[in-house]
């Protein structure tokens, strides 16, 4: 089953939650909705499920218009960030509930529930109530309920956000494997770029209710078509620098002059925004062509094997992620280097300008 979102928008009162959006999600595909909180991930997901009616546009399943179909009649499964189960039913009854509604024979239900429980390691807890379980077990119960339904569209709304990291890693690997095997359209929202990269599949980046880009996850990461996409898909945040190109020189607002990287020399003279990913900064130049920036340290965070160095460069606040422990004193001046082929360049409208060959290295 494929899902098409056709010019769908959602307006509540005076707020536009989703700007007109058109997407096609293929059967058996894994789609990650990536965006900050309030970007509209959940709104878009609710429209896909049929929990909310779109203000304009249509939702098509396999080419059939289902916009007016109530959610009960669509074959959807959804898992929320908060662990949502029926507290008054046992874990077994929770998992069996969508099958019971469908009126399947008892034996089939029993077999399916036990299979799902086995897969999600819930077998010993089947007789207990959801609230007697740990958070991770509660979420696995919700996942099992979504799984037994064999839905055509599986929506997971930040399902791992409230779990401890060990369980997240474990489930993050298993979830796509469990669900995509069924041939369902699988949609997964997350606020973390890293999670999107780990899940793979396709990524849809969202920003303020607008889909900024959709495509293969790695491709979106490597070739963000807009500055917004690059910013959404970067953690720690993307570092930016406004420059004006004049002949073969780049001038910053404060008057610093940089040599224009070779690949950007063919661009017309105009103002541009340069973007650098935090991990592309180095403390030592790797070649004489590297761009050099003189910066001031504001905060250093150490994470065992890496250092997050928060910096001030002219008016911009930057973050550099470098390997090893570098405990610079606050306010100390350091010079950072970026290889010219790792510079993203966006024009005034925020459109990607670097030639694609360059971004290969990213």
């Amino acid at each position, binding site marked *: 089953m494929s899902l098409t979102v056709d010019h769908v928008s959602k307006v509540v009162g005076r707020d536009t939650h989703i700007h007109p959006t058109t997407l096609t999600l293929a059967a058996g595909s894994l789609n990650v909705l990536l965006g900050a909180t309030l970007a509209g991930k959940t709104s878009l997901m609710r429209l896909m*499920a049929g*929990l909310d009616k779109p203000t304009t546009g249509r939702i098509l399943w396999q080419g059939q218009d289902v916009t007016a179909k109530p959610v*009960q009649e669509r074959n959807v499964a959804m898992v929320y960030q*908060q662990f*949502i189960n*029926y507290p008054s*039913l046992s874990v077994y009854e929770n998992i069996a509930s969508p099958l019971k*509604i*469908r009126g399947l024979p008892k034996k089939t239900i029993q077999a399916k529930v036990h299979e799902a429980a086995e897969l999600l390691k819930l077998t010993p807890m089947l007789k207990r109530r959801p609230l007697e379980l740990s958070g991770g077990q509660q979420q696995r119960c919700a996942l099992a*309920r979504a799984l037994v339904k064999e839905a055509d569209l599986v929506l997971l709304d930040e399902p791992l956000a409230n779990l401890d990291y060990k369980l997240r890693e474990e489930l993050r690997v298993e979830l796509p494997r469990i669900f995509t095997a069924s041939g369902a359209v699988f949609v997964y929202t997350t606020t973390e770029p890293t999670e999107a990269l780990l899940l793979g599949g396709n990524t849809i980046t969202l920003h303020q209710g607008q889909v900024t880009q959709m495509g293969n996850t790695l491709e979106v990461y490597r070739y963000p078509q807009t500055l917004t996409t690059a910013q959404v898909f970067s953690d720690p945040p993307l570092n930016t620098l406004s420059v004006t190109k004049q002949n073969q020189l780049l001038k910053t607002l404060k008057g610093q002059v940089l040599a224009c990287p070779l690949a950007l020399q063919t661009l017309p003279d105009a103002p541009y925004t340069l973007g650098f990913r935090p991990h592309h900064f180095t403390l030592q130049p790797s070649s004489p062509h590297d761009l050099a920036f003189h910066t001031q340290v504001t905060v250093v965070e150490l994470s065992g094997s890496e250092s997050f160095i928060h910096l001030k460069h002219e008016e911009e606040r930057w973050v550099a992620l470098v390997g090893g422990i570098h405990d610079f004193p606050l306010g100390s001046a350091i010079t950072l280097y970026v290889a010219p082929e790792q510079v993203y360049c966006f024009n005034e409208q925020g459109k990607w300008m670097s030639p694609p060959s360059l971004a290969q290295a990213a």
Partner: protein
Amino acid sequence: MSTVATSSIAPIKKSRFSRQGIVMTVYLVFLLLPIYWLINMSLKTNEEILSTFSLWPQHLTLDNYIKIFTDPSWYSGYINSITYVVLNTVISITVALPAAYAFSRYRFLGDKHLFFWLLTNRMAPPAVFALPFFQLYSSVGLFDTHIGVALAHCLFNVPLAVWILEGFMSGVPKEIDETAYIDGYSFTRFFTRIFMPLIASGIGVTAFFCFMFSWVELLLARTLTSVAAKPIAATMTRTVSASGMDWGVLAAAGVLTIIPGALVIWFVRNYIAKGFALGRV
């Protein structure tokens, strides 16, 4: 080791405990004294009540209770009261459940004003409504009927029930509703199978409050009835004017009037506090 520890701590604990105990006992005696005295009186004869001061019945008698249970003018009062109170509780909850669900789940024009306005119905003294109800009921034939009193009490109990139930319902995440719809539950099936068990304690507390307010309300119940639906409290006040005062029977009736409330309170004892906070704890 452990014995040393307990022996050194025990004396301090003991003296503090007993001081707390004294205060508690005094308080309990203070609270229970009127109730004890009522029970005490109900087991005495009228002569003993009027002639001597005795802390417990000298001549224990159950005649007062026997009289109430055999005399139709007495026991019919209980039947009448219980009939309209139960009717009222059932009507109030049936009406309030969907209303409270709407207030807790949907946003509509003027919802907050309407919700508050409901509560203002409780702010007027019942006496204000006695006259219009009396005239209205007389003209439509609801005067002196159980359903009439039950409906009159809905005026106070429905708003209260809506407020309490809304509090309990808002404590249930909306996502549970949506999960049920996604699973394929129809609204009615979700409401009865999933939702009502979740707020069962809320329904219990609401039932208790409706029961209690309707049970103790006297003014409307007395104004709107004459014979067929006369409540027990009205029966009790009217015996005063009969040949003297029948203290013993009156006390027994009082004891019997307390019992239903005590029974209901027992079932919802764990949720009463939340109910007094209108479900918002």
